[in-house]
């Protein structure tokens, strides 16, 4: 509100000017507005994904507040006496009872529930896509490593929010989900049972868990998320937004629209678009029909019992682990069929979180990076990302192994074994294929820069030879293709004491792994040489031989 009033020109005089003056004299808000209003945001569709997450979160907060007015977070047994006939007279917890009342007997309650749940799914999904964008464009590099970590913690917290929310209605589905968590916790040697009893206030399911999850869900986790979002956004303001390389865009500037008025209007409008899409989905499609699942009872389990999508990878890991890994040792049961997935997922998560620091160490790059990489220009990183995505996707798909089996008429065992292969071997295949594809695309870019694009015009030379004329790229397009950072493998150097440490060796070998196969960007000399050569008269292959042989001294190998 105040931002709008202070923006009003004072010439009108009267009330507006007086009011804004009054506020400014007491808060000095004009400085902040001037500063923020001039913030520049580069324009690219993928830069809006984080905003989608933010807006979904706002939607979640709004609808969640509505739901808290009617939800009763207690496990006191009550007899349902609401409108839904197939549950009339059934004993259930107060939590389930109140959720059914929200769904059937409170005006707008079902829509609010569905908006809340769909928005939660979109929240985590948009965070995931946002993280992929950050990763594959290298936006996590200095100075943004810490912001990556903050964002990553937000992702984990969002999953925590999702899972606690999923468990609140105390229906059959959520109870089964909690039972799996209980089982995983109990699988931890020595302390597992104690932790489980602490969590559930005694033996599962007890009468405590819904109340406890509710406190986490509406108080603790949202508070931390809001604080971290604020920090996350503050860092964006401090660091300025990254941008894709392009004409006029350098590491030292940011090209785009200022927040006021254009960007604020766009972003504000976009909030309502996101809200609208979520509401549209929620009003047309059922989500989590707890009335089908009925109240929680430890004995029944429904076919197709799955967690919400973002917990799927953990469920999938449990489904993929082969049987027979449990044994008794030292008078205790060691459930390696629980421990191996737990450790594997923990390692995976840790690698994702720490990746920016690993890459910074391997490259030895201490510079700030405000220009994004095109994924092909960082082949090893892109390949690592693809391997990670494949690993995650395999685990994720495994959570729906039974649905895949029934809907594609396959055997469940076949699906499981295929996905075991995908999770273990798939990442390696994805790594090599992606790396080769990146290198090939870089090669194509090189050729485009050096020799132009095929114009489709065939010319007959005086000697009778036919050639296709290659047209040079325009400057803007060429700039996009040649401006990227080129890394070379680090040399092993002795330290001050004249020794080569183990860390140095590891670092050098990692660096070799990262940058051994690479295509160097076209240099100015190469470009001039290519253009001086009269490149568009001759066949591509011949030109390439000449330029590569003559000029490309530091281009090491391409592997083939």
């Amino acid at each position, binding site marked *: 509100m105040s931002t709008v009033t202070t923006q009003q020109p004072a010439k009108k005089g009267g009330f507006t000017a007086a009011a804004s003056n009054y506020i400014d004299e007491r808060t000095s808000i004009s400085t902040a507005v001037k500063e923020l209003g001039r913030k520049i945001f580069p324009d690219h569709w993928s830069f809006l994904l984080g905003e*989608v997450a933010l807006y979904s979160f706002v939607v979640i907060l709004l609808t969640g507040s509505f739901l808290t007015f009617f939800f009763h977070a207690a496990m006191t047994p009550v007899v349902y006496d609401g409108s839904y006939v197939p549950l009339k*007279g059934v004993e259930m917890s107060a939590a389930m009872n109140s959720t059914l009342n929200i769904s059937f007997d409170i005006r707008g309650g079902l829509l609010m529930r*569905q908006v809340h749940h769909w928005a939660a799914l979109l929240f985590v999904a948009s965070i995931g896509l946002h993280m992929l964008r950050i990763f594959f464009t290298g936006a996590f590099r200095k100075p943004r490593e810490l912001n990556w970590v903050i964002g990553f913690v937000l992702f984990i917290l969002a999953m925590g929010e999702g899972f606690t929310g999923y468990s609140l209605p105390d229906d059959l589905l959520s109870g089964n989900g909690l039972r799996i968590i209980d089982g995983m916790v109990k699988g931890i040697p020595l302390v597992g049972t104690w932790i489980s009893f602490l969590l559930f206030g005694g033996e599962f399911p007890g009468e405590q868990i819904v109340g406890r999850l509710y406190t986490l869900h509406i108080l603790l986790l949202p508070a931390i998320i809001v604080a971290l979002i604020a920090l996350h956004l503050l860092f964006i303001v401090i660091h300025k937004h990254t941008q894709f390389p392009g004409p006029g865009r350098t590491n030292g500037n940011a090209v785009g629209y200022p927040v006021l008025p254009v960007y604020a209007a766009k972003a504000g409008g*976009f909030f309502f678009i996101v809200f609208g*899409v979520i509401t549209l989905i929620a009003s047309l499609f059922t989500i*989590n029909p707890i009335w089908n699942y009925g109240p929680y009872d430890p004995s029944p389990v429904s076919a197709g019992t799955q967690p*919400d999508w973002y917990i799927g990878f953990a469920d999938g890991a449990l489904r993929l682990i082969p049987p027979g890994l449990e044994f008794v040792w030292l008078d205790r049961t060691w459930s390696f069929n629980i421990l191996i997935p737990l450790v594997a997922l923990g390692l995976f998560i840790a690698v994702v979180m720490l990746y920016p620091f690993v890459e910074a160490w391997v490259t030895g790059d201490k510079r700030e990076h405000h220009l994004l990489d095109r994924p092909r220009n960082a082949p090893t990183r892109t390949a690592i990302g693809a391997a990670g995505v494949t690993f995650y996707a395999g685990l994720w798909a495994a959570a729906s192994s039974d*649905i895949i089996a029934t809907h594609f008429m*396959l055997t*469940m065992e076949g699906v499981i074994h295929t996905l075991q292969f995908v999770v273990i071997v798939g990442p390696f295949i994805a790594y090599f294929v992606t790396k080769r594809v990146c290198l090939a695309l870089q090669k194509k870019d090189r050729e485009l820069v050096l020799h132009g694009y095929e114009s489709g015009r065939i010319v007959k030379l005086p000697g009778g030879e036919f050639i296709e004329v290659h047209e040079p790229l325009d400057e803007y397009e060429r700039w996009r293709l040649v401006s990227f950072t080129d890394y070379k493998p680090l040399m092993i150097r002795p330290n001050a004491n004249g020794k080569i440490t183990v860390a140095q060796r590891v670092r050098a070998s990692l660096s070799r792994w990262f940058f051994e196969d690479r295509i160097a960007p076209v240099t100015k000399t190469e470009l001039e040489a290519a253009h001086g050569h009269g490149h568009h008269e001759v066949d591509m292959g011949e030109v390439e031989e000449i330029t590569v042989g003559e000029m490309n001294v530091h281009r090491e190998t391409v592997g083939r």
Partner: protein
Amino acid sequence: MREKRTSKPRRKSGRRHPLATVALIAIGLAVTGGAYAAINSSTATADTRPVASQSTIEQGEKLFQANCATCHGMGAAGTSAGPSLVGVGAASVDFQVGTGRMPLAQTGPQAEQKPVQFTDDQVKALADYVASLGPGPSIPADHLTNGGGNAANGAELFRINCAMCHNVAGAGGALTEGKFAPALTDVSGVHIYEAMVSGPQSMPVFNDLNISPEDKRDIITYLKYVQDNRSPGGFELGSLGPVAEGLFIWIFGLGSIVALTIWITAKSN
């Protein structure tokens, strides 16, 4: 749909049958002896028995020899390719043939549903023939299968006994080795009842001591409720649970959002 179509004409032809009067008296007797019927289900489900005559049994035998005996053997004594049908009862035949599972088109993990191969009279004749070979569960009476019971009790029983394979909303689910529990979204009450008493494919038998006929009626009532009442929340996405929801939000939710971000940023260029 298919089951509804096939079951309705059967009832119609039943009314027009020469022996319908006898059947009507039998039903009347069965209803009058209510208390007895409640305890002894064989009486309650015996109303169709008088309709079986020597002629339908003979017709059934001919059909059986022409269509079923290859695997089940002459006299339904069973061969290495198919089990003996002595004592499986009319309910089993009416379910297997009436839903198109039998005659089997090909061997596989389990008999798949396909278009019904016989008319209702022929199915009836086959059922009568097999029932004449030895006592077994008969085709249930209408009052047990018309969905007039207690849906809440049925829903609870369904969750406890059936949902682990058929899913809480009857959407079906996977079993081992390519077998599966089919969706119950368009199965008639008669066939659901017959499946419970005969235990086709991998399904266990739920006899009358296990789940009483009234409880079976309640289960059918619940499934009919789910069939007839669409989800109050909108399209069900196949009632498959969080997998369908996750797929939907990624493809259509996030997909449309990404399309909108492209639109928003493209306008300004």
